[in-house]
């Protein structure tokens, strides 16, 4: 093939022709000149000889494959190596025969253009531009180029897209395009800024504003610009810039501003200021409200030490310590401290601080400050008020306690003395009056109890006790009382008791009894005909009592008022039925206190049902052991009818009247009584070694009270076991507990119930000294000889010694007793009124006691005591029935044993008269015997009969005296003879 060498050599580019494997076939002069390669006709050379290693690989891996596939490559950047080792950048264009010619015959034409600087630069530029475009693309920014002199504005696609225009639609782009899209509010400002750029006074531009989208809405953008080149006069030539859509940003900023504003406003409203201390920079930031609290301008930003100056010294120390702890340990604080504002006014603030930590180390402290001056003062005032209220309450309760004591003391005297009076010789008028006095006394006591209860409730001092009690016992007691009352009014009485009722419950038996009594009394009071019933049953987890009556009922309108104090269903009720109106109120409160409820079902003229429900709390068996068994039974054994014979009692009470009452009560029972008004004196007696079997101690006394006295006594040697019984006006569980804690053994409430008093004393004394077990008998008690008759109902062994072992006398007395208290007498009993009944029972009692007829004595005593307390004959019916039975039994059992009563022998008239002095002496002795109720009086009287006749007593009188003595009715005898003596008739 003829090489067109001369034409080739003229080509401005280096040319090479190779075969399909790169072996050089032809080359031109330029190739030689540029790269020093000899024409291939000489030493054969290869394309690769021209290529430095990098190019070699590139050609191998990129260029040859392309040539083979498409027969050409264009504008490939390459580096060629000349013979001297120099490398030159070139552009390669190559052509090859397409098709499947085998490599050896294939021809490839290579043209290398040496890259000029400009070409290289342009290539670089293209690359740079591409890169830039990619950058912009990724930044999502629009770009603009403003040619200031002509006003032309070139924008990119993104710029246009941002404002809703396809780029093609923005032609020709100029500044007006942009200006037209500015918001009227911002146009002036922005235009001014642009002018500054234009004139050259500003080199840079930044603005955030709105521009109108093609669709009409406003888009928030950030526009930046920079002067790139200037005209000779300094004016801007080219300004390049960006446009970024900041809609989202703006939305966030608005939301932030809104929440900040809200925070600021609400803090202002609440008077809460914020602060922040950056520990790294030691700068302290105060919010507007904090500044306001301190009384400084809102822009005031203090140093830490300046901030602390606002606190008085002590508070400053506190705050400093807290801040220090926060910085070091990361612990926050919450303090109430005084603060002095800039103008000197004093505040109280609440200072809160928390710590921000990074990597476990505190870096920032921040907190809040609140003016709590008003609240602070308010709290102070409240605290004072509370203290005042508390001390007022305390004063009230002390008053209550004192009043209770003060009132009960004279009440005790009244009732006690009335009781004692009843035992003295009284004529019928006096007895009747006394009965009324006793009734009034009891009413007054009941009223006082109600009023004191009310006061306690009002003062909030009423509490319900929690102790084991037997509900059946309570029911039984109520039954005993109210059955009789109902019967006496001609009303039916029913008691319903649930067999499921537990034996022992926890609760306040006394209050329960009080409530049910109140309800039952009311029921009886307001029922003319029909009946009253009490029932108790278990209802799930509750105890349910129902008091039902068929009385006048309560109209529905009045029912809600009923449980208020001082209210009855209608005003006339008080006049008709009496009553204070306190009962139901107190009952309701008591029931509430016990955790239950009191409800009413009634309608006018339809009767009423009151329902008390209480929580059912069964007590366990162990608790029942602690139940104090109240003395309801006077089963104390008596000597001569005296149950405290020989017992020495020391009574301490600051009231002399009370002492007198108690003394009488006790001496009546044969006790030896020592009284002291001051505990100290009583203790002195004990220390001296005075004999004492038991003490009755009033609790509330001036100087030393009963509790203190008891404590001291317990410390004295040998007196740890001395029975000390408390006498008190109050009966609170709390007082009971204190009494027991002080060392007292038992508890008696005033006004004293003589029966309970005697029972308690005898019980405790018995428990202490076994020698006082069976009462000491003057004579030796030996079992009766085997031939003594055995009469059921009579304790012969007990009675005989009293009679001096005179069996005949005994028999005679039994006969006499049975004759006097025969069935006719018993029948008569039921017709007597209270006064007559009392007298009769008294007589029987004395005789029975002497003869050892224990049961008869007991029954008669019970009945008599009840009547003396103001009970009605109807109330002692059970006892009367029992007495009838007992007497019948005695009659039967004695019948077979005794001889027929022999007639009384005539009065001996042949008795030698003693010398008068003797008689007078003997007479005095007779009086003594009579006073002592000594049966020897009978014999003595017989002896003195002649002398008495001689002294002027009539036969009739003497007969009466004898009869009285025989009947063992000594008192009238004694009275008569004393009076007779006093009248001087016995003067000798």
């Amino acid at each position, binding site marked *: 093939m003829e090489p067109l060498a001369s034409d080739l050599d003229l080509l401005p580019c280096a040319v090479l022709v190779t075969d399909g494997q790169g*072996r050089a076939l032809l080359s031109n002069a330029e190739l030689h000149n540029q790269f020093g390669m000899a024409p291939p006709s000489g030493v054969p050379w290869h394309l690769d000889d021209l290529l430095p290693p*990098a190019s070699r*690989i590139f050609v191998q*891996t*990129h260029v040859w494959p392309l040539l083979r596939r*498409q027969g050409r490559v264009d504008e490939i950047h390459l580096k060629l190596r000349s013979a001297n080792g120099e490398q030159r950048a070139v552009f390669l264009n190559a052509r090859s025969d397409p098709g499947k010619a085998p490599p050896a015959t294939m021809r490839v034409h290579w043209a290398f253009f040496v890259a000029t600087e400009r070409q290289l630069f342009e290539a670089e530029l293209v690359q740079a531009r591409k890169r830039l475009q990619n950058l912009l693309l990724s930044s999502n920014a629009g770009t603009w180029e403003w040619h200031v002199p002509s006003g032309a504005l070139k924008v990119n696609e993104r710029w246009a897209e941002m404002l809703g225009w396809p780029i093609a639609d923005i032609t020709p782009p100029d500044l007006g395009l942009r200006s037209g899209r500015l918001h009227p509010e911002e146009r002036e400002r922005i235009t001014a800024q642009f002018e500054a750029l234009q004139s050259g006074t500003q080199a840079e531009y930044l603005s955030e504003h709105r521009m109108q989208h093609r669709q009409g809405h406003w888009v928030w953008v950030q526009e930046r610009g920079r002067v790139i080149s200037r005209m000779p006069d300094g004016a801007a030539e080219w300004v390049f810039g960006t446009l970024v859509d900041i809609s989202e940003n703006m939305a966030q900023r608005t939301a932030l501003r809104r929440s900040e504003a809200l925070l600021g406003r609400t803090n202002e409203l609440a008077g809460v200021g914020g602060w922040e201390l950056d520990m790294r920079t030691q700068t302290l930031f105060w919010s507007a409200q904090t500044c306001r609290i301190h009384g400084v301008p809102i822009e005031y930003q203090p140093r830490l030490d300046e901030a602390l100056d606002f606190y008085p010294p002590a508070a400053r120390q506190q705050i400093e310590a807290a801040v220090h702890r926060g910085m070091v340990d990361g612990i926050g604080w919450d303090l109430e401290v005084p603060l002095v504002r800039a103008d000197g006014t004093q505040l109280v603030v609440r200072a809160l601080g928390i710590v921000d930590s990074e990597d476990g180390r505190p870096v920032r402290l921040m907190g809040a400050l609140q003016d709590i001056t008003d609240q602070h003062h308010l709290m102070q005032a409240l605290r004072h008020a509370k203290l005042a209220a508390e001390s007022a309450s305390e004063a009230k309760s002390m008053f209550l306690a004192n009043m209770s004591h003060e009132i009960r003391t004279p009440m005790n005297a009244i009732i006690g003395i009335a009781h004692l009076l009843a035992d003295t010789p009284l004529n019928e008028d006096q007895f009747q009056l006394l009965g009324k006095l006793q009734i009034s006394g009891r009413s007054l006591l009941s009223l006082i109890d109600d009023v004191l209860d009310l006061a306690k409730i009002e003062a909030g001092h009423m509490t319900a006790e929690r102790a084991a009690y037997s509900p059946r016992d309570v029911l039984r007691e109520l039954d005993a009382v109210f059955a009789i009352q109902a019967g006496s009014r001609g009303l039916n009485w029913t008691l319903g008791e649930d067999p499921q009722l537990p034996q022992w419950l926890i609760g306040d038996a006394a209050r329960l009894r009080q409530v049910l009594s109140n309800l039952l009394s009311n029921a009886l009071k307001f029922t003319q005909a029909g009946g009253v019933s009490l029932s108790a049953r278990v209802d799930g987890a509750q105890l349910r009592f129902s008091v039902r009556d068929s009385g006048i009922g309560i109209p529905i309108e009045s029912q809600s008022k009923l449980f208020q104090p001082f209210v009855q269903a209608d005003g006339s009720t008080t006049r008709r039925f009496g009553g204070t109106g306190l009962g139901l109120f107190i009952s309701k409160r008591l029931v509430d206190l016990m955790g239950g409820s009191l409800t009413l079902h009634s309608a006018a003229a339809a009767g009423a049902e009151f329902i008390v429900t209480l929580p059912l709390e069964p007590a366990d068996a162990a608790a029942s052991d602690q139940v104090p068994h109240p003395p309801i039974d006077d089963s104390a054994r008596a000597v001569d009818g005296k149950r405290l014979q020989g017992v020495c009692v020391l009574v301490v009470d600051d009231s002399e009247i009370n002492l007198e009452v108690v003394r009488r009560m006790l001496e009546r029972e044969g006790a030896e009584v020592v009284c002291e008004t001051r505990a100290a004196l009583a203790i002195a007696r004990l220390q001296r070694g005075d004999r004492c079997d038991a003490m009755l101690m009033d609790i509330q006394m001036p100087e030393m009270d009963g509790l203190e006295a008891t404590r001291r006594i317990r410390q004295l040697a040998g007196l740890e076991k001395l029975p000390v019984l408390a006498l008190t006006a109050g009966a609170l569980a709390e007082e009971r507990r204190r009494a027991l804690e002080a060392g007292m053994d038992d508890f008696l409430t005033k006004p004293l119930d003589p029966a309970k008093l005697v029972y308690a004393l005898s019980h405790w004394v018995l428990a202490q000294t076994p020698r006082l077990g069976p009462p000491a008998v003057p004579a030796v008690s030996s079992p009766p000889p085997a031939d003594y008759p055995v009469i059921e109902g009579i304790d012969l062994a007990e009675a005989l010694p009293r009679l001096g072992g005179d069996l005949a006398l005994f028999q005679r007395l039994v006969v006499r007793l049975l004759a006097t208290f025969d069935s006719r007498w018993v029948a008569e009993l039921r017709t007597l009124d209270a006064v007559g009944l009392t007298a009769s029972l008294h007589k029987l009692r004395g005789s029975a006691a002497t003869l050892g007829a224990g049961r008869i004595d007991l029954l008669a005593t019970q009945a008599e005591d009840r009547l003396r307390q103001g009970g009605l004959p109807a109330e002692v019916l059970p006892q009367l029935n029992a007495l009838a039975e007992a007497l019948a039994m005695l009659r039967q059992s004695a019948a077979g044993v005794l001889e027929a009563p022999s007639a009384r022998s005539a009065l001996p008239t042949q008795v030698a008269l003693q010398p008068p002095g003797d008689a007078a002496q003997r007479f005095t002795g007779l009086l003594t015997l009579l006073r002592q109720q000594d049966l020897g009086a009978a014999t003595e009287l017989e002896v003195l009969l002649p002398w008495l006749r001689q002294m002027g007593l009539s036969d009739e009188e003497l007969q009466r005296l004898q009869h009285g003595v025989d009947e063992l009715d000594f008192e009238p005898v004694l009275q008569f003879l004393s009076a007779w003596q006093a009248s001087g008739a016995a003067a000798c």
Partner: protein
Amino acid sequence: MNPLERNHVRSMGQQGPVLLYAHGFGCHQGMWSGITPAFESSHRQILLDYTGSGLASESAPFDTQRYGRLEGYAQDLIEVCDALGLTQGVTLVAHSVSCSIGMLAHLQRPNLFERMILIGPSPCFLNHPPDYEGGFEAADLEGLLELMDQNYLGWASYLAPVVAGADGAGTGAELERSFCSTDPVTARVFARATFFADNRADLPKVLCPSLILQHASDALAPQAVGQYLHRELANSRYEVLDVAGHCAHMSHPELVIDAMRRYLADAAGAA
């Protein structure tokens, strides 16, 4: 993604021992179109594109971490074999960088390849004086990468019509024969992995027998490198093909076929 899909695996023939063809840098499975017809009836032939190369460049996301090292490409081979259930008895036919890739795969799965046929192999392109001459300095290789960058834009514009077949380069069969370059980005990654790899230390560990087909005059893999390989690879046979260039299987396929046949027959005979 299923490796068979990801790597555009093609399986030809049903019976006979398995030939697995692994292409070199900047190529795809189409480059084997001159070879495969010769073994159609006697062998089962498996062809694949590495992830990021050829048609595989479009289908799968390209993990530059994985494919920045030759081990990543070895993993492609293993995954494809696993997907095909091939565990042993495979003959690897590898070109250029696939020789190193294949060796790495063999070290991972010692039982997978029965033997390897290596066309234009080089374990390391860099010179490591005084003992080893891969043929290139680091500067040269960086220069290559620079050239690749410079020609990137032009490259992109070349590629589009070619891939789409817009220049009328044809359908199916033609495309198979034609030589598509890869996506410039993946090419860059593959290039770096290829030209800076140094697998000389792995050579002694290769246990399976191999045939080294050395181009008489190969700028990329000169004879010295081939001889080095022959020394280091146990059980290797060394044959020089009278070819100038680096792609004998494309420029002189009949020479390659002949060499393969002889080797495979010997191996079968020996077995």
